[in-house]
Structures are given as structure tokens and as C-alpha cells.
């Protein structure tokens, strides 16, 4: 049994001018100690997915269907009271901007001991010892001094380390990190990536990283989900996807990176724009931007326009694309020319 199992998850936001379906039919599993990445552009539904796992969706968002199981226990039906035992305790979250995560009027030490005491019956002294130990674990220099300081006295990188230390306080099984390095400078980002990798390996913590940055995801994760318009279009080993993306959207995303083109040459761009989640095209959501919606003979593939593609296995990945399915089922590998 996987540590976390998500099945056919469906998240909706009923709004005045119609319902937004932020997450559609998403299924995946996370093993103990595994580092999983979720990549997609803004509006792909990746943050809604992360928040729905712990029922942290802000109103009017709600889970319209599907299951989230943590160690086999269904989370979607739990009450807030029951969920509180899991949030922060067994599953911790790290957000994008450490300065908004931390309370500006409390010292670092106070914030750390406070969350410890909320979940466990520990003495002040014991709480302090645990907190200092965690600060050392995330390589904060002179932890005793930091303990008395306020967030504004620390740099962004140090604050993010403190946030990670707080996430680790109760020895969680899963850490969900929503864009953990986006607000940081490159040199600090590299340190945080190294730190998270090392912590997950050492303590066997499962990590879910949400990011739009394929470079960060590529370094930090072992497995990857690619989201487009609320659905997972491709999932598989990170290395495999970055080296040999199967879904046309993933290919487009990777080829659009400046690193993929010689300097001063035009970048490969995906035509068109990401659809709004309120108006997702029928069939495959990506089809209006996809060049493979036409057969080599120039005919429109009806399936792309009419049918939502189901995931098929291709190599080590699961790909939701009619074109890939056609390639696998009809064209022998040697004749593959596209």
C-alpha cells in the first residue's frame, strides 16, 4: 500500500459565472521517501491539487469526487477536527514565500515551540530542545541566536530554512511544498534543493513539490506529474520525461526552455494560450494548440476533438494522448518518423 493514494480526484469552484473545474480525474500514488514533482503553467490546477489533499481549499472550492487515502485512511470525508491531527503532524506544508508563512510578530523560537505544543504534550524546555535540534538539521547557523530573532531579521534563504524546520518539527511522513524556491535567489535555491533532497532521503519523508520550473523539478524529484487544464497529461520518472517527453504538451514545455535552443536562436514556442479553467475545450484540452491533432495525411483526428484521452503506458510513463496511443498501437517502432 502506498503512503498516499489519490484516485479520480475532482475539485471544483462554483462561481457566479459558472463552475471552474480546477482538478479533473487526477490519480497518483506517493511512496514513503519518494520525491514527486507536479509541474504545469499557472492555471493548470497544481496548487488546487496540493491544497485539496489536506482539504485546505479556500471557499468556494470543494472536492466534488474521488479519494485521497493516507496510509489507507480516507481523508476526504474526515471532519476538520480529525484532519487537524494529520495536518502539520503527519503531513506538513511549505509555501512559496517564507516571509508570509512566518508570523512577523513572533520570534522564530516562539513559532516553533507553539506548533510543537499544539500537537503534543511537551514541556517548554523539551520543545526548545527539539526546535533547536531541527534548526541544526536544516543547517541554520547559530540556532540559539536565531531562536530569539524575528523573521524580518533573517534573509529569505534563512527564513525558508526555518519554515522547513517547522515542517519537520513533528517528524511528518509527507511534506507538500508549493513552489518552495520560487521566491529565492539561485544560489539559495540550490542550497534549499540540496537540503530537501537530503532530508527526504535521511528521514524517509515523502515529498510533493509543486513548481512551474522544470529545472528545479528535474533536480529535486524522482517522479513527475505534468498537469494541463486540470488534468494529468503525463506521469513517469522525472529523468525519462525530461529526456524523452511523450505528450505533445510536455514536449512543447521542455522545448520552449531557453536551454533547449542555441543562443540567439528563436525559441520553440507552443502556439496559442492556456485555456481558462472555466472554458476548457472539449476532447483533449490541449488539442487546439497541438500539431498532432492532424494525421500525417492532414486529416483532423476526430478523437482529439471529441474524446478525453485515457492514459496509456509508453516506456516508463503514463501518457494521456490519442496520438501517442495511435503510435503505440498501430505504428511499428522502426517506421516512426515523427
Amino acid at each position: 500500500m502506498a503512503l498516499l493514494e489519490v484516485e479520480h480526484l475532482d475539485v471544483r469552484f462554483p462561481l457566479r459565472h459558472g463552475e471552474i473545474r480546477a482538478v479533473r480525474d487526477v490519480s497518483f500514488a506517493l511512496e514513503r521517501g519518494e520525491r514527486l514533482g507536479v509541474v504545469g503553467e499557472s492555471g493548470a490546477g497544481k496548487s488546487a491539487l496540493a491544497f485539496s489533499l489536506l482539504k485546505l481549499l479556500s471557499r468556494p472550492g470543494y472536492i466534488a469526487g474521488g479519494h485521497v487515502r493516507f496510509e489507507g485512511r480516507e481523508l476526504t470525508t474526515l471532519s476538520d477536527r480529525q484532519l487537524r491531527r494529520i495536518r502539520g503532524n503527519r503531513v506538513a506544508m511549505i509555501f512559496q514565500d517564507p516571509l508570509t508563512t512566518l508570523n512577523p510578530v513572533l520570534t522564530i523560537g516562539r513559532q516553533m515551540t507553539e506548533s510543537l505544543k499544539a500537537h503534543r504534550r511537551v514541556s517548554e524546555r523539551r520543545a526548545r530542545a527539539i526546535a533547536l535540534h531541527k534548526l541544526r538539521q536544516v543547517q541554520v547557523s547559530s540556532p540559539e541566536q536565531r531562536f530569539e530573532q524575528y523573521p524580518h531579521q533573517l534573509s529569505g534563504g534563512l527564513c525558508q530554512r526555518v519554515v522547513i524546520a517547522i515542517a519537520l518539527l513533528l517528524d511528518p511522513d509527507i511534506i507538500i511544498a508549493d513552489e518552495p524556491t520560487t521566491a529565492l535567489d539561485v544560489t539559495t535555491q540550490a542550497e534549499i534543493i540540496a537540503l530537501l533532497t537530503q532530508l527526504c532521503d535521511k528521514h524517509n519523508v515523502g515529498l510533493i513539490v509543486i513548481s512551474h520550473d522544470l529545472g528545479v523539478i528535474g533536480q529535486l524529484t524522482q517522479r513527475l506529474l505534468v498537469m494541463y487544464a486540470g488534468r494529468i497529461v503525463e506521469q513517469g520518472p522525472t529523468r525519462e520525461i525530461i529526456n524523452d517527453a511523450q505528450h505533445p504538451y510536455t514536449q512543447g514545455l521542455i522545448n520552449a526552455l531557453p536551454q533547449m535552443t542555441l543562443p540567439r536562436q528563436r525559441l520553440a514556442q507552443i502556439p496559442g494560450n492556456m485555456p481558462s479553467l472555466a472554458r476548457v475545450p472539449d476532447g483533449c484540452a490541449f488539442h487546439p494548440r497541438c500539431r498532432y491533432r492532424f494525421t500525417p495525411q492532414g486529416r483532423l483526428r476526430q478523437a482529439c476533438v471529441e474524446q478525453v484521452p485515457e492514459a496509456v503506458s509508453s516506456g516508463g510513463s503514463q501518457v494521456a494522448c490519442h496520438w501517442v496511443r495511435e503510435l503505440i498501437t498501430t505504428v511499428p517502432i522502426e517506421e516512426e518518423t515523427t
Partner: protein
Amino acid sequence: MNLADSLQTLGRAADVSAPLVTVRGLHKRFALHPGRLLPWRFDKRRRGWHRQRIHAVNGVDLDIQRGDALCVVGESGCGKSTLARLIMGLLTASEGEVHYDGQRVDRLDAKQWRPFRRRMQMIFQNPDSSLNPRLTVRQTLEEPIRFHHPAWSHSKIHHRADALMADVGIDIGWGERFAHELSGGQRQRIAIARALSVDPEFLVADEPVSALDVSVQAQIMNLLMDTQAERRLTYLFITHDLAVVEHFATRVAVMYRGTICELADADTLFAQPRHPYTRALLAASPRLEDIDAEPLRLSDDAPPPIETPSGCVFRERCPYANARCQRETPTALVLRDGRRVACHAVEEGRIP
């Protein structure tokens, strides 16, 4: 001897081979606590008015040649945006000179600036805040044209706006829409079109693609490169993203705490970074290939640039720093491959 004189003696008065923009000894200091109340400090013996200042730009020398795409790269707070604003005249320098096409521009008043405004334009990071929410796309584009060409007829301005929209890939039918009705990428296209509306020769772009998604970023970078080729533009491009720099730049200036530590042609710099900070930056930038590369760990976080310390600005974090680096501020050294490095260790040959 001031700069104009030195150019004269070299026999290179303002001509096409001379740099378009020349910056010499530029400094910008900001008061940490503006106002009269906060700077009071009550020390043990003395009560005094200590105005703490941030040295955002600390002695920058820079030439931008015509046709260059000069990228300034550095971490947040290194002074790269301040440098761009100083060159554009949006901020007044505390010290130093900025010359544009042979003329000194850093002490001009608003009226004297006007002819230069037509020649140099700026694009900002966030089109949400740089576009006027109460103007339609067409009004946004026509306003600067009307301002700089008061004699033009209404229809001429109208056609010019149409041509601009076509140039940057905006549907002409969108002319009557407001900025909030468009996506982030489309808004950035309008910001670019507005900058191009007065037909400038020099464009300053402050993080123009940082707020955009990967696929939109590719579109905007292509647009910027296409317009550069079509209109023979010169760019000053501010960014923190090294992948963007490597792709876009012909020359690169690496900034750290208000000073330029390395300045070189893009291929030279990326092939072999010399300054320890450039190395750290390059090593830390996430790459798709060689996934297990160990980042060069810098010692702790940078101290805030409140006072200018003696010595090298990078010494606190530099793995190669020695006693001389504590004491003496390194001067820029021009190496054989044309790059400029300000580092004692490189000068002494302590690091390759």
C-alpha cells in the same frame, strides 16, 4: 579629465563606433530611514543623527555598444534595477556620469530629457502595474506617439498604432479592450508595443519575462529578439535567470552588491566564468542535464549592503578570500580575452 575630454583625446568623438551608453563611476545611495525621526540614535554617550544609507550602486563603469544585448545578472538586491533606472534617468545618481550617444544625460531636467525619451524606452517586469488600467490598448499605444509627434494627424497615429499591434502579434480587434481583459503574455506584448511606439534605438527591459510561464516566456523572448533584428535595437536586459541570459545576451555584466564583478562577452563568460561569484551563480543555476552536479556552497547569506565595507564586497561569502580581500577593494582588470574581472584571486593567479 572628464569623459568627454578623454574621448576627444582618443579621437573617438560621438560616432557610430563609440558606445551608445557610457556609464562612469556611478553611485547611488538610498537613505535607509527617510524622514527626520528614525535616523536618531541614542548611543551610550552621544545622541546623534546617524543617517544609515544603502549603497545600491557602488562605482559602476559600463559601456553599451550599439546593437548589443547587454544582460545584467545578479541576485535580488544587487542593484541591477537601480542601475537600469539611473541610466534611464528615473533616479538621480549620487555620483558619477551617464552619457548617451556622447551627451551627458544624468543632470538633465524633464524638458531637456524629452528628445532622449524618444530614443530610449523601458519595459518593466509586471505589465499589471506598468499599464494604465483605465486606458484601452489603443489609447495606451497612441498616447506616447501623440506626445512625441504633436503634429501628426489623427489617422496617421491610428495607423501607426495598428502597425504596432500587428508587429507584436496583438489582434487589431483588441484595440478597444482594457489591459485586465488580456492574459499576462498579451499585456507584456502591449508594454513592448508601447515602448516601440516612439521608434526608440535603446530599450531597457527590467525582468520582462520573469513573471511569465515558460511557454509565454518563449513567445516574448522571440518577440524581443525579432524586434531587435528588425529595428537594430540596443538592449539593456536586467534579469536573474541565467538560462535567459545565456540565450539572449551578447554581453553579460554580473553584479554583486552594487558593483560589477565580471563583464564579458556571453560565450566567453559561460564557457569559462572567472570571478568566484560568477562561478557560484553558474554552478547554482538549475540545468536540465548533469543532474547530480554539486552546487558550489557559498558561506552563509549576504550581509545587507548598509555601509560600504573596505575590501571586496564578495569577501564574506568567497571561498578564496584572504587578508588582502579584507583590506583592499579590487579594481577591474581587463584580461586577454577582453573580459573585465574585479578579483584579487584572479589577478594574483590564485584561482585559474
